[in-house]
């Protein structure tokens, strides 16, 4: 890849006269030596798996092995059909879809890690709901995934994308930033403008700890994917409206690295603190251990 920072990414894409997604496809093909068509086909297939996951989450039993989670996507869908939701039809749909994919993940179904399994609901949630709303093609969405991947590539190489290294900000936070920047890109923002969405989004999840109850990717991971989808829409809207991230997005990525490195082990996916160590969190963990025996 010819870029290491979000600034370089957006400037190089603009200089090439391409969207971030189209520029990333070109860079990817150059990096691997495969044809752009082959790379595009693989990403298109991944988008197909995301669609399947949304469908499964809305129609199949998504009760997790622990029994702690499942069926919440269906609750959201039923609610938004019965009543005018506070979020409105579009954001509530993104939220419902995001929960659907995360519930499929928790019930050991097939998903695409974006960038991780713990954060796998956010990008499919906003991509599928916006595709329906704006009538975008699968091709548009596939380029969108390349844009999300380009942003994630910079975040992952300059900071981290795993909860064990950097807390939930690194997983759900990165996914929101990737989704927001990619949505702005698909919606036609200039690359430099789309990159503002990344910094705006990341700032809102700085410090988010990884504290899974019982060590499972269920509580609070699944609902955070629902919230994440809504936040991604908000950050993309801000950037599209011309709101700028005063602290440049690359500097926000560095802050995420600094904050994550300072987090104690107990709040980095060890179930040693946070929600996992509340009285209820501890009771759930005990119950799970007993059930196993």
């Amino acid at each position, binding site marked *: *890849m010819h870029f290491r920072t979000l600034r370089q990414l957006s400037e190089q894409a603009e200089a090439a006269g391409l969207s971030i997604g189209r520029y*990333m496809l070109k860079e*990817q093909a150059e*990096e*691997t*030596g495969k044809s752009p068509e082959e*790379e595009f086909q*693989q*990403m298109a297939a*991944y988008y197909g*798996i995301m669609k399947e996951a949304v469908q499964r989450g809305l129609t199949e039993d998504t009760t*997790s092995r*622990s029994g702690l989670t499942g069926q919440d996507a269906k609750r959201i869908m039923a609610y938004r059909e019965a009543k005018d939701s506070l979020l409105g039809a579009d954001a509530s749909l993104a939220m419902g879809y995001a929960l659907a994919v995360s519930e*499929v*993940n*928790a*019930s*050991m*179904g*097939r*998903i*695409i*890690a*974006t*960038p*991780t*399994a*713990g954060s*796998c609901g956010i990008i499919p949630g906003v991509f599928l709901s916006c595709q329906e709303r704006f009538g975008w093609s699968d091709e548009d969405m596939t380029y969108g*995934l*390349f844009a*999300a*991947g*380009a942003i*994630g*590539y910079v975040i*992952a*190489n300059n900071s*981290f*994308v*795993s*909860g*064990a*290294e950097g807390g939930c900000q*690194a997983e759900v936070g990165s996914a929101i930033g*990737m989704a927001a920047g990619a949505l702005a890109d698909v919606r036609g923002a200039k690359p430099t403008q789309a990159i503002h969405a990344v910094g705006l989004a990341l700032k809102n999840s700085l410090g988010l700890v990884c504290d*899974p109850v*019982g*060590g*499972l*990717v*269920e509580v609070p991971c699944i609902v955070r994917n629902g919230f994440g989808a809504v936040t991604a829409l908000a950050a993309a809207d801000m950037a599209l409206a011309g709101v700028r991230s005063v602290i440049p997005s690359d500097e926000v990525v560095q802050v995420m690295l600094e904050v994550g490195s300072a987090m104690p*082990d107990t709040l*980095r*996916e*060890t*179930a*040693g603190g946070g929600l996992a160590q509340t009285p209820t969190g501890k009771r759930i963990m005990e119950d*799970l251990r007993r059930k*196993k025996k």
Partner: protein
Amino acid sequence: MRFKDVFSIIGPPMIGPSSSHTAGAARIGRAARQLFGRLPQRADVIFYGSFAATYEGHGTYAAVVGGLLDMATDDVRLPDSLDIAMQEGMQPEAITGKGLYPHPNTAELHLYENSEDEEPAFTLVGTSIGGGNIEIVSIDGFKVKMTGNYPTLVIQNADAPGMIAIVARLLQHHGINIGTMTVDRKSRSGEAMMVLETDEDFPPTLRGELAAYAEIHTVRFVHIT
């Protein structure tokens, strides 16, 4: 760069619930299986850090065992790998490790040729760095660095002048470009290991061509797609 391309961020396709604790764990197991070259009769799976704290909930143990059975990250049989291991004749054991470890998500694997052996025939230390990506940091006690994302050649040889040149020349002859390379040795003029990640697949004749040199003791290939 720890993450090389767009599909290390978007992807892999996988069976949940965790990319670093399930998909990454499966890929560490699969790297060990490919390096060992066959199914071990017994396997100690030693977990450290966050792996040790949460391996039961994330199915990390089942994922490593699935990898040892050569399953991919989206293989639907992964959740049932412990039963399948029994059927296929491998006895795995999960162990919580003590002491220092290189990364919060670390697994150490000891593979035994026969179930009654006291010493493992093969050892490997792997770390899961996020999003299903891994780094193998040790093989049979040699310090290495490999991701499994590329066609990878692992050679154990006598520590002698010209060994790297022999290997590099053979790869050049086949038009294979070396992307990364690590070398380590146990002692001066003792045993050494070199690990080469390349851009092209290896031709079937390469193993024989390398093994023809008396100083080259083992030749192994890894590529986790």
